[in-house]
């Protein structure tokens, strides 16, 4: 076969590949990127279906209004509190689970399967239970966690949980930690087991103690995993929506950005404000995720 025909053929094969994914590419361009641009566009207008006035562009007014909007800043600060406790809690819990399992132990499969099952259940369904377990009733009326605390002699820890004025978001992080720690476990377990056993063995031969092996041999190898865990937990946390709705509905005390966006859109029919909130959320998440995607892209290139 002459070189030119080979080139022509491989070229047709290449465009052939493009042809098959073209429908998906167009769909993604329209429904992801196109609709984001559309949202941005709406957020720059005074569009809300309640008023009959003509639609005008108002520049960044909706965004500057958000800064002054007490409900928005409230939901943003709630989100920050939730995110910090949730990320730390899920990270520590999941990491401990992984540490306990990583060496291999009889019954590992049993524990691992149970630790991961919360990931398969919807936040809405679990919300019913956590709404109950984290109920604020105390002492003789207490049920759920408050009752459990009394029973084990820690009654002084009884709490208002998700209805408390100051601690509501920290309480909200508990079910989120419950649900997501398994994910962290899976990632860290994969991380631990990706480390060749020889490294551990070599350190052992060199006379390192078990804790030194963890500290100096294993933990440094887990840095990429830690990065992944932080990104994943971060973007899940910022999107928190059904978890909050499932437990406490749209209540003001536990309102976060995604819930406020829903309220602005559904209840107030203020689409301009709704899209502005959504775009702020998108930017927050993009700041976390885009560098990760680029990092990941580079890693792929080396493979």
């Amino acid at each position, binding site marked *: 076969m002459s070189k030119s025909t080979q080139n022509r053929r491989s070229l*047709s*094969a*290449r465009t052939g*590949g*493009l*042809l*098959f*994914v073209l429908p*998906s590419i167009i769909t*993604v361009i329209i429904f*992801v990127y196109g*609709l*984001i641009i*559309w*949202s941005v566009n*709406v957020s720059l207008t005074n569009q809300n279906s309640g008023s009959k006035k003509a639609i005008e562009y108002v520049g960044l007014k909706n965004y500057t209004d958000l800064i002054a909007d007490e409900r928005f800043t409230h939901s943003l600060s709630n989100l920050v509190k939730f995110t910090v406790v949730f990320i730390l809690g899920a990270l520590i819990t999941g990491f401990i689970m992984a540490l*306990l399992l990583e*060496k*291999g*132990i009889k*019954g590992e499969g049993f524990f*691992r399967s*149970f630790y*991961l*099952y919360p990931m*398969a*259940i*919807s936040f*809405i*369904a*679990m*919300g*019913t239970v956590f709404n*109950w*377990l984290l109920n604020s009733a105390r002492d003789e009326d207490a*049920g*759920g966690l408050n009752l*459990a605390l009394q029973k084990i002699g820690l009654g002084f820890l009884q709490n208002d949980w998700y209805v408390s004025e100051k601690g509501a978001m920290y309480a909200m992080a508990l079910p989120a930690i*419950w649900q997501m720690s398994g994910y962290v476990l*899976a*990632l860290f*377990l*994969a991380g631990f*087991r990706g480390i*060749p056993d020889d490294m*551990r063995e070599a350190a052992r031969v060199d006379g390192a103690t078990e804790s030194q092996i963890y500290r100096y041999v294993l933990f440094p190898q887990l840095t990429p995993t830690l990065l*992944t865990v932080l990104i994943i937990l971060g973007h899940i946390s910022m999107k928190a929506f059904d978890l909050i709705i*499932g437990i406490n*509905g749209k209540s003001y005390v536990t309102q976060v950005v995604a819930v406020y966006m*829903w309220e602005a*859109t559904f209840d107030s029919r203020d689409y301009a404000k709704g*899209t502005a909130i959504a*775009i702020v*959320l*998108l930017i927050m*998440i*993009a700041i976390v*995720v885009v560098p990760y*995607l680029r990092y990941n*892209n580079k890693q792929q290139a080396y493979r």
Partner: protein
Amino acid sequence: MSHDLVDLITAKHDVRNKKRKLNGKERFWLIFRYVSLAFIWFLVVMPIYVMVINSLKGVKNVYLTNAFKLPEKLDFSAWSVAWSGTDYFPQSISDSMTRTLFFVIQSAIISAIIGSINGYVFAKWKFKGSNLVFTLFLFGMFIPYQAIMIPLVRIATTLEINKSIYVLVLAHVIYGIPICTLIFRNYYEAIPNELIEAGRVDKASMIRIYRSIILPLSVPAFVVVLIWQFTSAWNDFLFAIFLTGGSPKLSVATTALNFITGSSNQVYYGVNMTASLIVSLPTLIVYIFLGRYFLRGLLSGSLKG
């Protein structure tokens, strides 16, 4: 070292120093590990335990103060009330469950087919710029869907597709493209190029290779994508509430449940617990039988695996 993280996780693993018998210190740590594992197990199981035991106490005998107590006698009446409703509890879950099953299965199948074709091209028929396109796909997986929701609702309303449950099939297929493509691409990347190199000349052979070599090898990836899309569409609340939330006739499992437990039925704790349990059962059953494949989808979602 294997590149398959799920194999790494689930393989029998033992890196203890097992040449010697355990000494006192090692025995202590082993016991410590089991006690800790059991304690965490207890916390993980607690909410589902509460759900199950309170669904077996009947309609009226469920109080917050006896949340952890086992039922005195088994009473399944809450199950029939939650499933088909009664005069004092009119919002049953059965219609929504059937509707959800109907749309979730369809969207999972369509997503898997699209994902398989895309994954094949991105893994084996790379075109100029395909890596960039793929990364742009991936971004679509991480966006908060709120950022596209208002235009999406407007399109659905204008085209009047929000009057049918197919609006959710469409939404999950479209926004499932990135993850499904990713899972299949990673899977096909692992298939050796030599296996398909021979026939790799033109467009016709591209389809033939897919049908005769790739597709028969794809069963595990299909299982991963099918149960991933099944689980995420089943558990989805965001698309459902925005696209069909206004219409009770289109309520799906999560929106119906949210309506039931959020409405004035707060007194019927037992029924609420039962409804939540019923809604959780399909995905739980899938997890129990195909947990390994679920785990694979989960790790793909983190771009690892």
